[in-house]
């Protein structure tokens, strides 16, 4: 019986991230539009876009390989699975033990691996450009994220995200320099991974600075819808991840009642809204970087994460 309830909650969480992801993207766009004194599209516009794309005929380039049509499904599945493993409003997901934080990082890495390959598949200059730059960003962003995960795992004594969140919500954690460094590093990585300003501009097209858009240039119709959806899921994932690790209060810890889960759910929405507004404000207040400034930015994230972890390794005995 309890297995069924857990399974139901797992499915609810999976559906929640899937449903909420376009809304978050729409919200960020709305905030950015309002801040630049435009009215902006409705926050529900991404749903409409996705629906429109999904119904369109898919155009596939002549030189595309059979994998071209498979990659979008793989990218979507990998991202969704990763997102489903991050607690949104309650911990103790049924399948949370099937992949820990390191595995979530690796799943996101898999998504990027296949996206870069998808960009190279048709054999156009833009696709290769995007893939090459994405690969360069990833070589710094992924280790930075992994090192931050190390710090979290050492503080909480576990790499399981549910355990980490439960530990962070308890009073045992206190203020730590490492956590502050980890938060900054994680936010920097999140900006890079989601292709936000100052790393990449999600709104540009036909610009030599684009990265993500360059890779998906040849996609259309349902394939494009899936890739866009995966990108939105990724944003939701990072926002949920930061919220669940650094602001885990009101997260319903496992074995609590339905009511707690309900409060957790509504507060989750509030947390996500705050995150989106913050992202929108940040993006409007900063300019995009040159591509070769990005390694400095991400290198700083890597160093912060590393210093945080080093502090932790060194300070454990002093406690």
């Amino acid at each position, binding site marked *: 019986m309890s297995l069924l309830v857990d399974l139901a909650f797992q499915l609810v969480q999976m559906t929640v991230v899937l449903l909420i992801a376009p809304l978050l993207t729409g919200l960020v766009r709305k905030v950015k539009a309002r801040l630049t004194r435009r009215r902006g599209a409705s926050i529900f516009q991404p749903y409409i876009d996705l629906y429109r794309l999904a119904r369109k005929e898919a155009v596939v380039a002549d030189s595309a390989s059979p994998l071209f049509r498979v990659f979008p499904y793989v990218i979507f599945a990998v991202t969704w699975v990763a997102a489903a493993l991050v607690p949104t409003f309650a911990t103790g997901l049924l399948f949370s033990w099937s992949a820990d934080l390191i595995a979530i990082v690796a799943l996101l890495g898999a998504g990027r691996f296949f996206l870069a390959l998808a960009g190279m598949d048709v054999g156009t200059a833009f696709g290769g450009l995007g893939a090459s730059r994405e690969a360069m960003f990833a070589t710094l962003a992924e280790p930075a994220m992994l090192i931050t995960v190390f710090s979290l795992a050492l503080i909480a004594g576990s790499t399981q995200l549910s355990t980490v969140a439960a530990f962070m919500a308890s009073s045992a954690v206190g203020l730590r320099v490492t956590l502050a460094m980890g938060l900054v590093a994680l936010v920097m990585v999140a900006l890079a991974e989601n292709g936000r300003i100052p790393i990449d501009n999600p709104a540009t097209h036909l610009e030599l600075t684009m990265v993500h858009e360059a890779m998906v240039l040849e996609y259309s119709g349902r394939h494009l819808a899936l890739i866009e959806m995966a990108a939105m899921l990724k944003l939701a994932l990072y926002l949920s991840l930061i919220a669940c690790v650094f602001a885990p209060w009101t997260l319903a810890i496992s074995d609590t009642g339905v009511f707690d889960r309900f409060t957790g759910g509504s507060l989750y929405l509030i947390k996500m809204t705050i995150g989106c507004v913050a992202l929108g404000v940040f993006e409007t207040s900063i300019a995009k970087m040159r591509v070769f400034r990005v390694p400095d930015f991400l290198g700083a994230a890597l160093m912060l994460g590393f210093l945080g972890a080093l502090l932790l*390794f060194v300070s454990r005995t002093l406690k």
Partner: protein
Amino acid sequence: MSALAALMSLDAALLSLGVIAGFLIAWRVSANAFVYGAAFALSLGAFVVASWALLFAAPPQSLTLPIGLPWIGAHFRLDALSAFFIALIGLGSAAASFYAIGYGRHERSPGRVLPFYPVFLGAMGLVPLADDAYAFLVLWEFMSLASWALVMAHHERPENARAGYVYILMASFGTMMLLFAFGVLAGSEGSYQFSEMRAASPSLAVATTALVLALIGTGSKAGLAPLHVWLPLAHPAAPSHVSGLMSGVMTKVAVYAFARVAFDLLGPADWRWSVPVLVVGGASGLLGVMHALMETDLKRSLAYSTIENLGLIFLGLGLGLAFKADGMNEAAALAMTAALMHALNHMLFKSLLFFGVGATLTATGARDMGKLGGLMNRMPATGLFMLFGAAAISALPPLNGFVSEWLILQAVLLGPAFPQWTLKLLAPTVGAAIALTAALAAACFVRFYGISFLGRPRSKEAAEAHEVDRFSLTTMGALAALCLIAGILPGFVIDALKPVMLFAVGGTMPTQSTIAWLSIAPIAASRSSYNGLLVMIFMLATSALVAFIIHRLASDALRRAPAWDCGFPEPSPQTQYTGQSFSQPIRRVFGGFAFRAHEIVKAPTPGDMAPARFIVRGDDLVWRAIYLPIERGISALASRLNALQFLTIRQYLSVVFAALVVLLLVLAGAA
């Protein structure tokens, strides 16, 4: 018949198969299918016997043959550690042999390959069985020389001849270091049997010297930095199935040799031993993957990636040594299990990738990325299997590469428990190095696969490529399947490694196969767990669900059209990214200090019609800082000693007399 006797007869049969092959070729009989088929059967037999010995935890067996040095004989022994490595070698050899039944048909000079191939396999299979220093070194040399002959198979190409030269130099150097290591361990009594070395308790200084010598000796075979220079020359020079064997299997024999010395023969470990191992492992990982990212020759790129993976394996072994020295046996078991699993996984995917490049070579005659592209359309099966290999080596879940890297990271996370400050600081550094290496490896294999198998063909040969024979495809398919199986059911591998851990570090990881849902949990389920099977089912279910929903409810219409490319499609495939341009951003970020790479843009002055030039300069620091001075030193010394060639008889006699006096003085001093 005992398992040990069975294994020895199988290997002896392999050695004699080499002789038979020689005769067959002398008689001009087509020997290809027979030799490779027999090698396949014998290797598979060795795999089965060794796995049986490992899984059923057969007690150690020994055997003495009256060959070799007259008063010693040759000792052989089968225990858990050797059983694991023999199983690994057997599986890798069987795969390579089966692949070669098809691939070997394209060999232009089979007489240079067929006689040495079975000898190489037999020698590799025998090294882990050797139980005294003499037998070990003889078999080790056999392995080196047989592989050298295979590297020289196509010696008419000057770069292969050079590769063979560098290889034989480095291999001899490595064997010499191992000889010294065993010499130090044997002591003045000259107890060359491993059982005597095990029983002796050498002083810390002696043991440390032996460990460093063994690290140099085995590291030169495993391709650890800075002794790696021969590897990217020699491995690609051999025929592809032999390249796969050298990278996937022979390097593991070096891992075995190091593990045998460090975890068995030396006795109780000292924590300081782990420091050089960790430093060398981390350096090899980073250096190897950087080089792999810059290389445009597919086989050389794979060879550099072998250096990277061996670095990871030695990192695991180093952590295992450190944990063992500090009495944390469970943690040591975790680190060493990770290392050995990575050894197995690396054998699987590296063999697969080399076989795939071999298939590419058969189909197009090219192994330079700049001449390939779009092979997925022409060779879909090879392309699909290669995608599995590329994803596995990039440590993507749910494939096998991820599991072993995940386990190594779990071992790193136990680092704060080290009592020594050096190790405490080294542990997060190792973690960062692994993270960086893994990320760079993923970039490397996006490039490797994307440039050669995706995109548009860059040459006529690539455009007219054809799928390869069924033997090759079957082997690649089987290896790809094994990569997946080892990734989703790692618990069984971990459990199979238990007797090895008990033998090597005196502790084991918790039993995995009893954990619900076939998860793996290296320490405790509350701390960390991973379930590749569930992740895979999850991924398959979600993608199938989405595909079904979209195709049913939205649209499944599809139209083929020319590439859009922002409205200005350029028909020439030259406009695609190449191997060099793909890695250019990474070279700019990391290459500055890794290779002292710098780019020079020479733009003509306005009005000048000369073309602009873009020049990239780089430097292999290891080669320049270590090998060139040695080479210069040897040449200088040789030209000085040249004078000795032109002495008179009287002068020679006085030199001999002086040498005799000096030797007598040394002897008198020692006594």
